[in-house]
């Protein structure tokens, strides 16, 4: 999994490339989220444009950090999830927990 992190006006934008699933991909994203939140960053945009699929361990991870960032006044917002990723989130009932955006600017600005 390719993970790229940029900070834009106090918001961390994480760009992923590749399937988000059990193993290295989920482990690396967990570590990234752990590092960011440990450093006090709780406002996160997750760019899923190049993520063809998210499995249940990926969903569990995102949902977990959604909960913990929200408790600290932040959130995890999703940018451009694929049709199949949206379908998957809907099938397990968590789609409505997330704010979803088409444009990075709008996602970033939504935090202010």
């Amino acid at each position: 999994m390719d993970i790229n992190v940029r900070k834009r006006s106090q918001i961390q934008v994480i760009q992923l490339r590749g399937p988000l699933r059990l193993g290295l991909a989920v482990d690396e994203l967990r570590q990234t989220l752990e590092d960011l939140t440990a450093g006090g960053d709780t406002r996160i945009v997750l760019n899923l444009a190049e993520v063809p699929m998210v499995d249940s361990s990926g969903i569990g991870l995102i949902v977990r950090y959604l909960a913990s960032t929200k408790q600290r006044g932040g959130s995890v917002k999703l940018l451009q999830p694929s049709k199949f990723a949206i379908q998957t989130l809907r099938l397990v009932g968590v789609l409505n927990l997330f704010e979803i955006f088409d444009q990075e600017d709008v996602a970033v600005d939504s935090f202010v």
Partner: protein
Amino acid sequence: MNDQRTGRDVDVLELLDLRIPAESAGVAEAADKVTETLTRLSVPEEKRLVIGLAVQEALANAVVHGCGNDPSKEVRCQVKTNPIGLVLIIVTDPGPGFTSELLPDPSQQESLQMDHGRGVYLIRQLMDEVQFVNGGNEIRMWKY
């Protein structure tokens, strides 16, 4: 392949019979192989994605819960099809099995923020028919 739903016996084509070491890298690789095979057979993308994710989940459970991530253990993944395009996936692990009927429903409001427990539920949503056999260490799942 005896299609339990319709009761017909149908001609079976064995597409894949993989044995993978019980580690997450093997899961991803095998799931990708299944998807590639379906691509070669011109299975439409949406159906491919759905089956690929179900295989990923079933293999992940077999590796994590069935084998405790012990790479010296092996998980088997069979893919079969028939002339009318039905796909049957069988994933088998050497573990203790489990009682799938006892699993809590992860889509309940109070469970929505849990960080696990969605795999079996997701498989049931994605596939058209799902059976657990041999006390739960073998899953058979059909996509029509």
